[in-house]
């Protein structure tokens, strides 16, 4: 593993490096889904390089982005982050992105668990939020499995297929995260109405 911040069974999180820029641009070019955003957009390695160059210059940071890599071969497969950090109120907003060819293999779930561990166990945040377009049912379901609870919806948040669509808001408090983490480790469901989540990644020795 290269400069890991947190490591799970199959994936680990590390700071982004300048040479990751081309890989992120390739992921955007290969995007297969259209329901997550308003539309797909080709991105340049130059803009990713600029973002990465600025990402770790501010202390304390207003946001933290981390690369998601596979343990088996160090391949970069996506990113996770905590944004709009408020160090006084101890809040932030989480986000994640996985390359199209890395989806459907539970890498995203493991990466998100690591991010939540980073938010609550290392940064000691009290509550976090997340926001998805109502058309992004996959991410909304994933948030539910991770312990987030519905906080409501913001109206007319985006435009899609000729009409306005809403944004779905979720939040997760520290006590709920601790309970969810313990439940995951015990291999039981967080909420009876939700499908049983995956067991947590084993922690490396």
């Amino acid at each position, binding site marked *: 593993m290269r400069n890991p911040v947190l490591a799970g069974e199959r994936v680990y999180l590390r700071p982004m490096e300048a040479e990751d820029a081309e890989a992120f641009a390739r992921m955007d070019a290969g995007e297969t889904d259209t329901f997550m955003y308003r539309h797909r957009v080709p991105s340049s390695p130059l803009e990713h390089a600029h973002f990465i160059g600025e990402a770790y210059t501010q202390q304390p940071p207003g946001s933290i982005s981390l690369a998601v890599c596979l343990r088996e071969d160090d391949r970069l497969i996506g990113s996770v982050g905590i944004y709009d950090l408020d160090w006084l109120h101890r809040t932030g907003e989480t986000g994640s992105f996985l390359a199209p060819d890395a989806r459907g293999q539970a890498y995203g779930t493991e990466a998100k668990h690591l991010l939540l561990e980073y938010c609550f166990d290392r940064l000691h945040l009290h509550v976090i939020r997340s926001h998805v377009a109502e058309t992004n049912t996959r991410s909304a379901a994933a948030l539910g499995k991770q312990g987030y609870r519905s906080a409501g919806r*913001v109206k*007319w948040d985006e435009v899609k297929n000729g009409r306005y669509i809403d944004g779905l*808001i979720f939040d997760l408090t520290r006590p709920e995260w601790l309970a969810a983490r313990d439940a995951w480790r015990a291999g039981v469901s967080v909420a009876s109405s939700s499908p049983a989540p995956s067991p947590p990644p084993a922690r490396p020795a």
Partner: protein
Amino acid sequence: MGIQDLRPAYLRGASVYLRAMVEADKERGAAWLDETFPVNASRAEKTLKEEHTDQWRRGERRLAIARCEDDEVVGSVRLISRDRVRTCALTFWMAPWRDDADALRGEALGLLVHWLRDETEVMVVTAELPADQPRTIAAAEAAGMVRNATLREWFGRPDGRVDCLIYQALNPRWVVRDA
């Protein structure tokens, strides 16, 4: 030009008005600058100049909230616009030493909602309000805003935490299919 010349007639209430920021505001940074830690005049000036670079392109604007009777700056509001979907989010910061901040913010919010929704044709005005600010919440509801989401325990207080209430005003003159 005096500061009185910058008072917009259309953003003026009984107690407060909203105006563009000016360089002299750097001397009162604690009243309007929503920084985590204290800032001096030099830092406030830097922020002012950064915020007024490429402002039209950035879709973000800060307005000072000032008292009508003496022009004292008592806070600020940031307007974050997403022009492609015609929405605007409001973020308030009030001078921490004022006991009447809740009432002044409420009046400013009412002025802004009417201006944004009824004059600038914004589709949605959004404001995230702490649940312990009853005057502001009452002003939001009086202006036609509706609470659409609640983030639990979002703001820290000396004696605990309070929820964040997400209020929105939708533009009723626009016809939106299936919204």
